[in-house]
């Protein structure tokens, strides 16, 4: 896998406050790379530093093998950036914003018009192209922001908290949009503190805490690094789990814990299969009605929580 961005020993401080502490990351080409962390963990600073908005205090940043410091213009040409605050002019129409940022990003006049049409269709805003930006809804604004970042066909798209403050439906739309952008061979770097969506979306994830990268890898790798155990979740109509829990005590070696949580029995085990068999058998005998049964690995949220706790 070719790494499109290499970050080595990057540090950044504001006054005495260290925001980024010796960060090293490799971001692969044409993948969706997620950076997760709590608010104030340094996600936005990291993104703004790698694009050269903030000057780093130490470290090296390379885009496609070229140093940021010496190739700022080139790098800004291949990168599109959408911030969590909409980086557009409210008094311009959707189309005017795109035309303006397209011109700034050296899109030739001859192709600018077609680019605008293409991007507007892509983000599904073509119906609102003549609307003043200040009249757009939150979701439309976010899509326009992404459209502005895409107007010059960047090879890398950086999205800082793209689903922040959006309702679940709009969030899903934006997620789908990001997938479509990525499917067009664009590397996407995304920050979020919504772990579930990042887990589903990203090919690779870095966990940032207090300006440090705690873990970096695929979601699978991160989950595995946290725990090999799986969770078996059982939801019975009667919500009476005593008989089932008594039967499962025979599998003591395989089960590490059992607890009733929100009317569901959560069983943590190193091997889900024999536990599942025993659960289904017991339910069948008891004639109780099984509403739901699920097997899952530890969530990214749990991984994150565990890492954050461990690192204070």
């Amino acid at each position, binding site marked *: 896998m070719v790494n499109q961005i290499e970050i080595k020993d990057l540090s950044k401080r*504001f006054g005495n406050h260290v925001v980024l502490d010796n960060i090293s990351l490799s971001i692969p080409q044409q993948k969706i790379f997620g950076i997760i962390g709590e608010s104030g963990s340094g996600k936005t600073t990291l993104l703004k530093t790698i694009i050269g908005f903030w*000057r780093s205090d130490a470290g090296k940043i390379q885009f496609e093998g070229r140093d940021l410091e010496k190739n700022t213009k080139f790098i800004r040409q291949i990168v599109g950036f959408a911030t969590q605050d909409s*980086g557009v002019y409210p*008094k311009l129409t959707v189309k005017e914003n795109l035309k303006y940022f397209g*011109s700034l990003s050296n899109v030739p006049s001859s192709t600018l018009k077609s680019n605008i049409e293409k991007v507007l269709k892509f983000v599904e805003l073509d119906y609102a192209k003549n609307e003043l930006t200040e009249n757009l809804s939150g979701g439309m604004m976010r899509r326009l922001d992404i459209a502005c970042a895409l107007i010059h066909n960047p090879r890398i798209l950086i999205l800082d908290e793209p689903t922040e403050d959006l309702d679940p439906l709009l969030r899903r739309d934006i997620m789908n949009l990001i997938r479509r952008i990525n499917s067009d061979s664009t590397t996407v770097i995304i920050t979020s503190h919504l772990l579930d969506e990042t887990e589903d979306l990203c090919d690779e994830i870095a966990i940032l805490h207090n300006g440090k990268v705690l873990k970096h890898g695929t979601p699978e790798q991160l989950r595995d690094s946290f725990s090999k155990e799986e969770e078996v979740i059982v939801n019975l109509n009667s919500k009476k789990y005593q008989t089932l829990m008594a039967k499962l005590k025979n599998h003591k070696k395989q089960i590490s814990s059992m607890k009733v949580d929100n009317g569901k029995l959560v069983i943590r085990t190193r091997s889900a299969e024999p536990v599942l068999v025993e659960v289904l058998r017991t339910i069948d005998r008891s004639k109780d009605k099984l509403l739901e049964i699920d097997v899952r690995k530890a969530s990214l949220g749990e991984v994150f929580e565990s890492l954050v706790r461990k690192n204070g």
Partner: protein
Amino acid sequence: MVKLIEIVKKNLKILIRSKSSALIILLGPLLLILLVGSAFNTSSFSEITIGSYSGSYSDLSSSILTKLETDNYKVTKLENSEQCTDGVKSGIVNICIIFPDNLNIESGEEIELYVDQSRVNLVFAIKSAILSKVSERSDELSTDLTNTIITQLTQTSSELQLSRDEVISTQQKNSDLRTKVGELEVNIINMNVNFSEVDLIITEINNETDKLEADFNTTKFNKLENLVEAMSAEINNFNALDASKTNSLSKVSEINIDLGNSNIQLQNIRDTTDSIITRIDAIAVTDVDSIVSPIKTVTKPISKEETHINYLFPTLIMMVVMFVSILLSSITVIREKTSSAFFRNFISPTNSVVFIFATYLTNILIVILQLAIVFGVMMSFNPALSSTLINISIALLVITTTFILLGMILGYVFSSEETATIGSISLGTILLFFSNTIIPLETLPTGFRQIANYNIFVIGESIIRKLILFESSLKGILSELYLLGAYILIFIVVIFVIYRASTELYNIKRHLKGK
């Protein structure tokens, strides 16, 4: 170039679409010009209220007040001097005039004027206007007095001329008299009153008679001897004539001397009269007006204009240019800096020079538009402006550039629209205060005055005044243009120095605030 045009277009669209900005930008200067134009489109003061007090108004003091009233000043007679001076303090009257009781020209008393010195801009004008009216009345009185003096002098001169002629005539007569007295003296001197020979002859006659009597021994000659004796006695009386002659000569001599002295005195009178006449005649200026005002001063405008608005126009234009340029450019910069789109602009592959130049270009276009409106309106009042329009345009371009760059510096220095606005207005006010607009620069201490001469507002106003009022050529304003050019260069350097630092500092502040 495409980027530049796009940025300028974007800036203009944002300004125009913001209703308040559009209103201020397009209508503000026009409104200002119309307001000031209608307020100052007059050449005299009106609604100036004069308070006056006198314990007893004389004809003279009343005549001064009448004169002021005829010139449309509102005169209010107040009951006492305190009320009059308090009226100035409270602003009920603009000036208080206190006349001495029974003012007359002989008394030599002073008329007191009380003015509110804190109203610096008005006090000199009011004082000057009122004093000129009082002075007019004073001149009238002086004219009357001088007229009397001149008439008396002329009359004296002609009477002296007559007396002089009489003196000359008397002198002539005196001279004639002296001549005659001289002749008389000669005649007296020539008069022979010596009878000694006759005495000798009588003696001879007596001797001969005695001889004859002796010879003839007769007394018949006694009668002859008696006659001779009688004749001898008579001749003795003639001998007294000599003394009379001497006496007469002495008297004639005295008369001659007296006549000489008299002549000398007459000559003295004549000389004195001549001298007085010469001196009176030497008064070359006998015209009363010339004596009352020997040096006449007439204040003539060096420009053709007549109303205040034409004189105020350069200042007005400068105020519009200064405040609009500084405010607009600082606000444009600060809005861009605080805009959420700033980050996207910053990370675009566009040089900061393009953004800086585009900001300048946007502002200059707006100010040019405003000035075009202002000049359009002014040219309808004063078509002569068109003759200097090219020079004015060049000068205004330089002046506006200077103010815009200054405003941009403020925009980069401050971090919010509010502080930038306050900063811009404060700076504009300082520049305005240390110019001739509020108080004359000449009243400032030398150090301040020298600094104030480098005030951009002062330089700009001087350029515009020269161009509009005196129709000066570009050569005439070259030194000022060079000075503004130097300012422009300095400001450009400052902008480039602070651009990156100020935006980074602002973003750090915003970043830390966000946390």
